């Protein structure tokens, strides 16, 4: 297991700000499904080759605050998480509206497993999934 500090929505921004103020570079964010109801987001920070991680677990229907007001570069990986997992993110400095990597005809939230279930059941792939 990688070392990651567990955080909540309440202290997400303060923890990220703390890394920013201490000179850490935001490496990226990683999103993954925990189960049908939850997503996990890892925030990776680097300083002098030392990697530190924050781990946030949220319900799929929860909205998380964007960290792009602290680290501008987060807009890229946040938009990717929005595209790929249907993660709802509030306050992104640049919001590509779910079309950062995906096109107009792309399936919605393709990295979310519920997408596969919907297709196997013969549902319209553009139809309701979006985790």
């Amino acid at each position, binding site marked *: 297991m990688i070392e990651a500090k567990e955080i909540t929505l309440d202290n997400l921004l303060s923890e990220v700000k703390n890394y920013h103020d201490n000179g850490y570079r935001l490496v990226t964010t990683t999103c993954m499904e925990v189960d049908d109801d939850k997503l996990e987001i890892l925030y990776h920070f680097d300083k002098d080759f030392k990697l530190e991680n924050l781990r946030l677990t949220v319900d799929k229907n929860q909205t998380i605050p964007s960290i792009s007001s602290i680290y*501008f*570069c987060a807009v890229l990986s946040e938009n990717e998480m929005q595209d790929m997992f249907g993660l709802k993110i509030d306050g992104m400095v640049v919001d590509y509206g779910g079309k950062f990597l995906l096109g107009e005809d792309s399936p919605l939230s393709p990295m979310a497993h519920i997408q596969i279930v919907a297709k196997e059941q013969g549902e319209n792939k553009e139809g309701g999934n979006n985790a």
Partner: protein
Amino acid sequence: MPDSNISFIPFGPQHPVLPEPIHLRLVVENEKVVEALPTVGYVHRGLEKMVEAKDVNQMIYVVERICGICSCMHAMAYCQGIEELMNVEIPERAKYLRVIWAELHRMHSHLLWLGLLADSFGYESLFMQTWRIRERVMDILDKTAGNRVIISVNVIGGVRRDIDTEMQKWVLQSLDAIEKDLREIYNVMKDDYTVKQRTVGVGVLSADDARELGLVGPMLRASGVASDHRMTGYAAYKDLDFEPVVETAGDSYARMIVRMKELFQSIDLIRKAFARMPEGDIAVKVRGNPTGEVISRVEQSRGEVLYYIKADGTKNLSRLRVRTPTFANIAALFKILPGCSLSDVPVLVLTIDPCISCTER
């Protein structure tokens, strides 16, 4: 200022100087760019999702195809991650061979970029000269690995091929010739009036800007930040004594100089690796499936790549996340394009050495 001086210019995704599809929505006031919004999304392939269909070993071939230019280093980062998860120690010789092929990839990537940069400001002869030199690097890859671009030498547990003594001599002779040609190109590019006019003071990023934007690789080092992940000593880098190439001006010229100096550094590293490479096996057999989560980072030609790998003991990984260097460096465009002249846009886009295929995966 009347509104009529404001224009919206779509730049790309098909554009003569862009080898890959990236679209820039430029807001221009007369000839000056006042706002720029980079947009990708034309070549997304869903490669991370392929872990659901391909097993741990098959994924090596998938990650090699994230990007042709740094395919070897994608496989290296992936294999290092899986090896760490499975507590596999690869043979010393394999570590050196990985370094040699990685540095050859860095060389052909930087040479490709130099050619494109020269072409972007109209130096077609310089473009042809750099790509002519690059062909010699491709010949080395072809002779040593059997392929020019996607060489597929990394396996979990080591490497697939060895480089014997005779071949080493030939490679070293080829590198001598390449170095001589490179020296001539370097002298032209570093002092040329036109090159300087198009790059010096253009697209300046301070060290703070570079860190704040999360930049990596030559983008970061050209702004005075001595960050090169090879310094952590993965593979055989710990035995090769080197310092990162750093420039402080933070402009397009500094980014060019960093990449050119790194070409000589790569030659030096390959020579050292051949000189210090021990005899022995090139791979160990690995059985079973990985369990756990790991982060593997490697310094590619364009900068640090991050692999997040999560495995649950089955033959398929449960998550693979790849943050490629261009994905990080695209953030620079938000900073360096506003305020520049419209004619500088192609040069500035190229100075981040964009690989959109990598970015979108």
